[in-house]
C-alpha cells in the first residue's frame, strides 16, 4: 500500500479547494519540490526542482506551493497505518506513506480486500492510496506502481490476476532502476551483463547474480521470480543510525553560529537515543555550503569514535564541536547536521568504572528530558543550544498550512452559510 502523492493528498484532505489544482510541497526551508500532484507533474515540474526557480511562474500556472506540514503528515500517516492494521496484524510500516501487509486468501478475496482498503483510506482518513498484491514484496511494489500509473486497475493491482503476456510486456519495458531495492549505481554493471529491463533480471540466473553482485541482488531476482525472500519486518527498530540535519533559513557565517547548531542537534540526538534506550558509539558532524553557489564550496565533516557508547548530551555535544576547527569563518553554510551510528541498546555492557561517564551517572540526560517533557522543548538546554526565541537559522516554513489535527487553534474551518 502506498499513498498517492502523500504530502499533497494530506493537504487536499483538509483543503478541497486544492483538488484539481497543481500542488507541490516543498522540502525543509521551502527549498525544493518534494511532492508533486499529477497536475504539477504535467506542468513539467521535476522532483527536487528548487522553489526559487519555480516561483516566478507559479502565478501564471496557478501553482500552489506549500511548506512541509510535518505535524499533519505524521498524524495522517499514523491514521492510515492504524486503519491498515485492521486488515492484517501482519503490518510493516515501511515509510511515512508506504506499508506492507501480509494477507492470505483466494484471488477474488484478495482483490476485494485491496479495494476495500483503498476505499477505507479514502473515506475514513481522506487520502487516495494504491494497492499492489503479489506473492513477494518486490513484485508487490511493482504491482503497486502499475496500479498507480494505469487507470484501468482502479488503484488496485493483483500481479497474478494480470495475464502473463501483459506482465512480461511491462517488465520488458521497465528499466532495472525501477525495481525496489536495486541501487542506481549497480545498473551500469547490470547493463554490462546485458541486463537492462526488469524482464532481463527476472530471467537471470540467481546464483550467477549472487556471485557477480551480492546475496541482496540474488534475493531481488528470486523475488521477481515469485519466491519470497525478503521477510516482513514487524518494526524497523534495528535501525543503525539517526540523522539530524536541516537547511537553514539564513546561511550561517560564523563559527559561533555553527557551534550553536551543533549543540542543538547533539541534544536532539541525545533525547532521541534516550527515548529508544539506545547508545551511540560513533558521531559524524557535518556542514555544507549551497549547491547553487559554485564560488564558495566548503564541506567540513568529522567522524569520531565516542569514548564509550553513550546517549549523554554533554559527551555528544563535545564530540559534535570537533567540527568547528574545520569551519571557515565568513563562509555561508546553508546546511549542517549530525549523525550517530553504531547504535546499541543502553546498559547491556557495563563499562569499567574507570571509563564510566561522570555525567551519565548523575543522570543529566534524564533530567533534561524530564524538564523538557514537563515544560516543553526549548525550556531547558545545554550551553550553546540556547533557550528562548528560536535562533534565526531555525526552519523556514512560510507557506505552512494549518496543523489541522494536532493544534487546537488551527482546526479546519467549516462554513455555516
Amino acid at each position, binding site marked *: 500500500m502506498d499513498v498517492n502523492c502523500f504530502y499533497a493528498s494530506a493537504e487536499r484532505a*483538509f483543503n*478541497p*479547494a*486544492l*483538488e484539481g489544482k497543481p500542488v507541490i510541497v516543498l*522540502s*525543509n526551508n521551502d527549498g525544493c519540490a*518534494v511532492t508533486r500532484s499529477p497536475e504539477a507533474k504535467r506542468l513539467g515540474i521535476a522532483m527536487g526542482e528548487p522553489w526559487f526557480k519555480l516561483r516566478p511562474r507559479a502565478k501564471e500556472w496557478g501553482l500552489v506551493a506549500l511548506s*512541509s506540514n*510535518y*505535524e*499533519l*503528515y*505524521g*498524524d495522517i500517516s*499514523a*491514521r492510515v497505518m*492504524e*486503519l491498515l492494521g485492521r486488515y492484517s496484524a501482519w503490518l510493516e510500516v515501511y*515509510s*511515512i506513506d508506504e506499508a506492507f501487509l501480509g494477507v492470505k486468501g483466494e484471488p477474488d478475496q484478495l482483490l476485494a480486500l485491496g479495494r476495500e482498503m483503498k476505499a*477505507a483510506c479514502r*473515506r*475514513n*482518513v*481522506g487520502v487516495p492510496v494504491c494497492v499492489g498484491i503479489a506473492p513477494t514484496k518486490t513484485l508487490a511494489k511493482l504491482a503497486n506502481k502499475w496500479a498507480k500509473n494505469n487507470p484501468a486497475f482502479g488503484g488496485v493491482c493483483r500481479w497474478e490476476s494480470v495475464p502473463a503476456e501483459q506482465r512480461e510486456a511491462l517488465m520488458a519495458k521497465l528499466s532495472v532502476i525501477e525495481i525496489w531495492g536495486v541501487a542506481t549505481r549497480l545498473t551500469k554493471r547490470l547493463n554490462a551483463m546485458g541486463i537492462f529491463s526488469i524482464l532481463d533480471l527476472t530471467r537471470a540466473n540467481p546464483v550467477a547474480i549472487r556471485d557477480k553482485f551480492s546475496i541482496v541482488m540474488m534475493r531481488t531476482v528470486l523475488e521477481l521470480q515469485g519466491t519470497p525472500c525478503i521477510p516482513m519486518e514487524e518494526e524497523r527498530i534495528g535501525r543503525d543510525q539517526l*540523522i*539530524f*540535519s*536541516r537547511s537553514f533559513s539564513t546561511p550561517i557565517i560564523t563559527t559561533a553560529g555553527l557551534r550553536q547548531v551543533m549543540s542543538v542537534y547533539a541534544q536532539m540526538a541525545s533525547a532521541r537515543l534516550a527515548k529508544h534506550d539506545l547508545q551511540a558509539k560513533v558521531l559524524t558532524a557535518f556542514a555544507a555550503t549551497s549547491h547553487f553557489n559554485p564560488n564558495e564550496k566548503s564541506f567540513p565533516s568529522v567522524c569520531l569514535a565516542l569514548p564509550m557508547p553513550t546517549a549523554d548530551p554533554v559527551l555528544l555535544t563535545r564530540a559534535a564541536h570537533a567540527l568547528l576547527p574545520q569551519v571557515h569563518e565568513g563562509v555561508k553554510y546553508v546546511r549542517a547536521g549530525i549523525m550517530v551510528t553504531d547504535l546499541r541498546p543502553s546498559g547491556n555492557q557495563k563499562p569499567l568504572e574507570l571509563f564510566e561517564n561522570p555525567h551519565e551517572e548523575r543522570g543529566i540526560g534524564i533530567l533534561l528530558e524530564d524538564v523538557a517533557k514537563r515544560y516543553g522543548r526549548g525550556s531547558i538546554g545545554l550551553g550553546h543550544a540556547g533557550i528562548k526565541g528560536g535562533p534565526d537559522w531555525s526552519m523556514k516554513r512560510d507557506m505552512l498550512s494549518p496543523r*489541522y*489535527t*494536532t*493544534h*487546537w487553534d488551527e*482546526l*479546519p*474551518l*467549516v*462554513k*455555516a*452559510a
Partner: protein
Amino acid sequence: MGVIVGPRVIDAGLSLVTALLAPVAVAAGYPSPAQDYFDGRIDLNEHLVKDVTSTFIVRVVGQSMEQAGISDGDELVVNRALEPKNGSVVIAVLDGELTIKRLRITPTGVILQADNPRFPDIEVPALSDLIIWGVATRCLHHV
C-alpha cells in the same frame, strides 16, 4: 525526507493529571475505602470519539446552523467513517469549501439544508452527486 516530528494528537482528556489519579494506600494509616471502586476519571475521548482513526475536530464559522444548536465558533466532532443518513448533520464539500449542512434524503432527491430559512437549500438528484466529508456526531458548544 527530513526529520519527521512526531505528531501531538489533540487530547480532549485530562492526560496531565492521569499520573496523579489513582488514590494509593499510605503505608501508615487506614487505607482509603474508595480505592477498590476507583477505575479512573471520565475521559472525554472515550465518550466523544468512537473511532479515533476516522474522527476529526473542526470549527464552525457562521450562523446558518444556529437553530440546530451549532453556533459560530463551536467545535464539532466529525466521524468520516459514518454513513450519512436522512437528518444527519454533515460536512459537505461545496465549491471547494468544507460546509456544514443537514442532509435530507427524499424519494425525489437529496437536499442539503441550513437549519435557518434565510439560507437556500441545495438540491441534487442523488447522494453520489455530493462529496460528503464526514458526519458530525457532537457539537462542543461554548456556553
